[in-house]
């Protein structure tokens, strides 16, 4: 199945990445080649195989509910592109919460 530039545009939109027309034209065939190369993966694994999400069989790793020092607001905000009133300043938001 070929990945079209429209597909790539939709995915880039989901991933919030602005792509130029040139990039869309270039990425679509590149990504298509990669997807074709990985396609065999879906053939090898039978339905009886348990998918593996973690390399280790660890469970129940918990932290005690004990407060640890936070950063100072100055530290938290130091690297922000824009700050106002000790808050992070973001350009106006168009969409509503997901």
């Amino acid at each position, binding site marked *: 199945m070929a990945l079209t530039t429209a597909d790539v545009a939709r995915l880039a939109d989901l991933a919030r990445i602005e792509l130029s027309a040139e990039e869309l034209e270039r990425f679509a065939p590149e990504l298509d080649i990669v997807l074709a190369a990985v396609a065999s993966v879906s053939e090898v694994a039978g339905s009886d195989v348990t998918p593996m*999400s*973690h390399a280790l069989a660890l469970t129940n790793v*918990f*932290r005690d*509910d004990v407060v640890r020092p936070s950063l100072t607001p100055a530290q938290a905000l130091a690297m922000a592109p824009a700050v106002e009133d000790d808050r992070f300043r973001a350009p*106006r938001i168009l969409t509503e*919460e997901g």
Partner: protein
Amino acid sequence: MSDLMDYDEVMERFDPALGLEVHVELNTATKMFCGCDNTPGGEPNTKTCPVCLGLPGSLPVVNGKAVESAIRIGLALNCQVASWCRFARKNYFYPDMTKNFQTSQYDEPICFDGHVNIDVDGETYRIDIERVHMEEDAGKLTHAGVTGRIHGADYSLVDYNRAGTPLMEIVTRPILGLGERTPVVARAYMAHLRELMVALGVSDARMEAGNMRCDANVSLAPKGAHVLGTRSETKNVNSLKAVEGALRHEIRRQGALLAAGERVIQETRHWHEEGWTSPGRSKEEAEDYRYFPEPDLVPVAAGASWVEQLRATLPEPPAQRRARLQAAWGFADLEMRDVTGTPGSIDLIEATVTAGASAASARKWWLGELARRANERGIELAEVGVSAAQVAGVQRLVDAGTINDKLARAVFDGLLAGEGTPDEIVAARGLAVVSDDGALGAAVDAAIAAHPDVAQKIRDGKVQAAGALIGAIMKQMRGKADAARVRQLILEKLS
């Protein structure tokens, strides 16, 4: 505002189906995945760290107490507890989320398949619980600009103090067959959850503070059709009244649409305190959250012994406790309803009774004088600053005749001012009632002399007129007279 159909008419033509998603913020000491202070509020961005700010390289570690709370909530809702489950990432971009994914649970919730019975006016309704899962809250946005709302704002400011607060999401299965009682049962369910959270000690559950928020789903189907219609989802409804109001409104709005042959759009809606809802973003194309198991966290495996240990910590179910205490205290239904309606009062009355007071007197103080003071200051009863033991102490002085109810109020003033024990305050403020016949007799004589017409009425047998004389004497003695003795003396002198 859209057209609304008369509620009763909707009920004649349609069956509503209800679904409730409730988010509960836990009151753990720390956040869900980091050690930051989890108490609400505070100066902006004072409760953040590399983890809850989503700094590059940071990693989450699960708060064990939050998992225990999740399991206890599930058990209290008669759920199964998953013997093995994972966290999952819910991927979407929003500026109040520091990682642009929410660490949540997807197809493996920690608790599932529960139910709860809700009593409304003598009827019992069973609400099936689909799942209880763990996730994290987001930061707080402030929209700068004229409206203060998202639309029309020039820019937004973000405070991440709340980012990472443990959230429990409690989701019902579709609830059918409630008919016209749908909004009322929804409200009662919310009240039940709130009470349960407080009893479990896992959340402050104050809806007005956003500790507990409800997304209310409702749809209509033609009467008797046994299908599910298209639903709307009213987001973040934050009071009991609003839950009921939003559902009533949505039922009437959808009824009008369907009756007019239009279709209901599947969308999120916003509730307005004035009693209506407005559309949010429509979900024509469902959001693709690209869930996958959170690789930075290992699975949670709740073994049977751990679950049983937690089950043993469950409090008596609130309804059962209420019934038990009502019987023990001998309260009429109406009296008990006042107790139930005042958050925290049942615990305070119980503690006051334990400290030696009668149930009736404990109820009288907490729901009267002290509730009035809490209301004036806009605080919870438990925060009023007087302990159950102190209330019992005050009542002991009343019972002994040392003070009367009126003087008791001055004792509470003294307690709130930190002037010592009730006994010390009575002594220091000179609050003990006067029952000495010499002093009272002189006051009675003076009152009879000052009000000869009243005295004559009493002599003529109109005993109830004594009240006027008693009032005058009490006023003159600034409330410190033993009213019963004064009455006796008046009647003796005028008989």
